[in-house]
């Protein structure tokens, strides 16, 4: 996102603080991204739809508290969406699901190893199932949402070095076990 785009976005948000109708522009801009993020973490369209609506309602309800901290507004939305997902799993006491796109996994495997096959994909998935959930969260934001470490740290409420450390540890084991060339910084 360019500085100009961020500035325009801030203007919309300032307008939306006085007139909630103006927030519609932000809603249209980020709806798909937030919906897909939620769908990836629930694997249920209806639940993702409900959580997505709740995310935007919460954002609108607390818009006056929003302060620009150098991130695009979407980072704040991702943070609210992440909290909604956590609330959902706490309430339902279910196992957290990460529903990842096969196409994206193949893309990442192609970048990481020339000799990848289906068996290797399955082994990587098994390995990811055994990783701590916090690590998978960071990997998801880094490689499926293309977020930088600063933004990941803000979304997950951790330090930037913490986000880097989690990614580094997860990728280091991937490199060692599967001979993958996954770049630490993407």
């Amino acid at each position, binding site marked *: 996102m360019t500085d100009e785009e961020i500035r325009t976005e801030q203007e919309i948000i300032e307008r939306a603080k006085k007139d909630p109708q103006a927030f519609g522009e932000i809603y249209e801009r980020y709806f798909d991204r937030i919906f897909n993020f939620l769908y990836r973490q629930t694997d249920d369209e209806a639940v993702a739809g409900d959580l997505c609506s709740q995310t935007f309602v919460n954002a609108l309800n607390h818009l006056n508290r929003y302060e620009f901290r150098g991130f695009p507004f979407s980072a704040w939305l991702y943070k609210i969406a992440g909290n909604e997902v956590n609330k959902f799993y706490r309430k339902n006491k279910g196992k957290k699901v990460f529903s990842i796109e096969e196409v994206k996994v193949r893309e990442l495997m192609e970048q990481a190893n020339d000799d990848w096959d289906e068996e290797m994909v399955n082994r990587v998935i098994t390995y990811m*199932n055994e990783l701590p959930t916090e690590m998978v969260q960071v990997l998801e934001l880094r490689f499926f949402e293309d977020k930088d470490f600063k933004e990941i740290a803000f979304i997950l409420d951790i330090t930037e070095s913490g986000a880097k450390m989690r990614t580094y540890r997860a990728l280091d084991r991937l490199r060692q076990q599967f001979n993958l060339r996954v770049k630490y910084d993407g």
Partner: protein
Amino acid sequence: MGRHEIRMRRQRTPARGSERYRNYNAVLKQHEQDMRLKKILRVFTYFLLIALITILLVIVMRWEKRQQAKPKTTSSLSSKVESFYRK
């Protein structure tokens, strides 16, 4: 096993698409409802606070009144005692 489950899905986007869940009017309506509830809650809290302060004020005023009345009774009592001994 971790505390999560990783699933692979073939389609990039949800099968029925996200469009059926896109409804800004519903979000706006929910927001207005939440704001109304917040306002009612705020008014109720203020009312409760004012009621509490009023009750406290009444208690303090009554206590003060009783305190003011007390020395009188003690003085009258002491004068009664004095007059008794004088007799």
